[in-house]
């Protein structure tokens, strides 16, 4: 039982950031802008917020510091994503180009700036943000073990974002309009919706969530940051597609992937896997292979927003 709890708790390490970032991608793509810059935005978000943590660590209580850092990550993510928004909305640029540029820019900028400011590219921080056990809730059998012990506050924030994102998408005027812009912007426009404004909002939301995702990805796995999120922005993109651009499925996809990754790296404490003693390479490959196989049998219909990737042109037939 402990093993199950442990594996579950650890899979959150992968799942939560992937969900948050993929939801960001969802808002952008649902508004009609493909955002492959998620990776770059994560890097920039993590860079500034961790720099903030490093600066104020010790003078501000950990959980408060963490939350403040999240705000920084969000703001920076939004600002950075504006570059993508401007290029793809105002300039009608090819969205892959602009996204690629941001992906190229972010790590170089992070390393370069860190060196300029503090001499070295790594930014150290102390990871004292983990909550060993949530008071009261942590004692609930099973559930308490699963999600109220050894957690980061980000787990709850991630869950909160997921719930809020689904409500926004399906239950609000904003969500309806956003989806319309991603499916058929001409229809939205002729219904009097400001497509440009909606798309800006979509991209900025993706910036906010990807920036935040960068921070919450890095914090639990290391004690320093050096300008890389190891391709998890691209994995989030994969999760978004796997999740068919829908919140609940994004959760499923991220969880599936996170679980597979955790099992792969902790196979030796999982009894029946430990007995197999397979080559580690097999475990490393499994999450990706399994995803491919699942996709091969579940992708009959793609739910990609129809207008995603196309610059909006009012006169298009």
């Amino acid at each position, binding site marked *: 039982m402990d093993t199950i709890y442990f594996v579950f708790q650890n899979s959150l390490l992968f799942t939560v950031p992937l969900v948050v970032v993929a939801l960001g991608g969802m808002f952008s793509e649902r508004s009609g802008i493909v955002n492959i810059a998620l990776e770059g935005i994560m890097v920039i978000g993590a860079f500034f917020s961790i720099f903030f943590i490093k600066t104020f660590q010790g003078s501000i209580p950990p959980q408060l510091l963490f939350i403040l850092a999240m705000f920084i990550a969000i703001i920076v993510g939004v600002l950075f994503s504006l570059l993508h928004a401007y290029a793809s909305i105002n300039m009608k640029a090819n969205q892959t180009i602009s996204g690629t540029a941001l992906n190229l820019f972010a790590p170089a900028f992070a390393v370069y700036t860190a060196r300029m400011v503090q001499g070295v590219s790594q930014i150290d921080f102390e990871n004292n943000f983990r909550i060993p056990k949530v008071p009261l809730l942590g004692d609930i059998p099973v559930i308490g073990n699963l999600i109220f012990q050894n957690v980061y506050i980000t787990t709850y924030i991630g869950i909160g974002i997921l719930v809020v994102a689904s409500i926004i998408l399906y*239950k*609000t*005027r*904003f969500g*309806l*309009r956003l*989806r*319309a812009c991603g*499916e*058929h912007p*001409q*229809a*939205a*426009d*002729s*219904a*009097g*919706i*400001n497509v440009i404004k909606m798309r800006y909002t979509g991209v900025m939301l993706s910036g906010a969530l990807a920036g935040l995702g960068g921070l919450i990805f890095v914090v639990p796995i290391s004690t320093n940051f050096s300008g890389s999120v190891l391709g998890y922005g691209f994995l989030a993109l994969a999760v978004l597609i796997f999740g068919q651009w829908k919140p609940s499925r994004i959760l499923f996809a991220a969880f599936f992937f996170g679980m597979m990754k955790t099992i792969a790296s902790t196979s030796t404490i999982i009894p029946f896997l430990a007995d197999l003693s397979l080559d580690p390479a097999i475990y490393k490959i499994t999450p990706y292979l399994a995803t491919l196989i699942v996709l091969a049998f579940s992708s009959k219909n793609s739910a990609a927003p*129809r207008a995603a990737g196309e610059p909006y042109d*009012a*006169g298009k*037939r």
Partner: protein
Amino acid sequence: MEYVIEMLNITKEFPGIIANDDITLQVRKGEIHALLGENGAGKSTLMSVLFGLYKAEKGTIKVNGQVAKIHNPNDAKKYGIGMVHQHFKLVHNFTVLENVVLGVETVENGFLKLKDAREKVEKISKQYNLFIDPDALISDISVGMEQRVEILKMLYRENEILIFDEPTAVLTPQEIDELMKIMKNLASEGKSIIFITHKLNEIKQVADRVTVLRKGKYIATVDVATTSKEEMSEMMVGRKVLFEVEKGEQKPGEVILEVKNLVVKSKHSHKNAVNNVSFKVRRGEILCIAGIEGNGQTDLVYALTGLTPIESGSLLFKGSDITHSTIRQRSVSGISHIPEDRHKHGLVLDYNLAENLVLQSYFQKDYQNNGFLKFEAIYKHATDLIQQFDIRSGEGANSKTRSMSGGNQQKAIVAREIDKNPDLLIAVQPTRGLDVGAIEYIHKKLVEQRDAGKAVLLVSLEMIEVMNVSDRILVMYEGELVGQADPRVVSQQELGLYMSGSKREVIE
């Protein structure tokens, strides 16, 4: 006389073409004002300017005598202007209700409040006999229904000035009648309507006045009651147009296509889309499949051309079995296909006109040599067809087809398919959205094919076209052939009975 809408001296240019050249349009309150013009005359553009989708280079717009600044559809909305676009602007994966409220949603603390909206939609739907199910997904409903949703959208917004851009092009005769009634109704309530159509009958039937455009220029505005159809069409194309299709006696020859017990599975329901259909097409005849949209005509054509697999039955073309042949094999053996959906199937919109005109023949000896395209021949071919079929576009053979007007896109397809010199021409709604001049031309081409001893299989929803062009009519209803008629003797009413399923006979 007081005008609700005045568009004065409007000029709108696109790269390489002046779509509107100093056009003036004045609409009176409470009238149905028709806008008539050939394909590419600039009607949609003008309306898009009025609706705020395009910004005109020159000219003023006045609403109720006041100069109006309309920069986007939101401004148009403020002036009470609503528009049903030629290509519908509906979000395919939204429900009817969601599409209707889009942009004018009622909310409570930011959350959608659809209850009131639903009631209002149901009320309007009842009032105008629209029979709309607010919860149906757009992707599940028929084109006619989509049209009604567009109308409902305008009514829901309580617009006073309604623009209909070719609303009847995709409707069945019954649906057209319904629409005409609705429009009259609306006008009698004091709403002003701008009505774009190529069908002079419809103008005669409902419009008060008509403004005619030709090649981007204003020609005249006249009263409908005192102007004959012939006069209108002459204004429109600048010459006399024949309305009756001139054709000699048919001389049916050998059977060229034999369809035996054809069954095609439906993608959406358990019922077969095409159920046990058998018929023959002969050389020298135009056989027409008539019927209301959505009764299996599309699937039948897809099965004949190879786009959809056949469940059971067989196809014999020129005596050989093509049941399992590929699309290419059928095409090469002499079947041409003018598809129903020109954007989905007919054209590669990002290719230029020349490239599109060889879409069915690029692999032939004439256009390639050991796999290398012969561009000279391709462009020469394009120039020839452009001339021969009067295809108009900004940059000739080099025009991106995406930028061409709908009518000219259609002409390009017709040109390509007829130029293949097929033994069997399958033409699905070949004149949809075309002006009378173009329709006349295409009908003439179909008859020429027939007279040259080729077979033509025409699928049409257009009653007049069915009656005028065909030599023999088969009526399709719910995937089955339910009637056979001779256009020289059958009445429109009788055909209507077959089409609605009220009458059926066994076909040999």
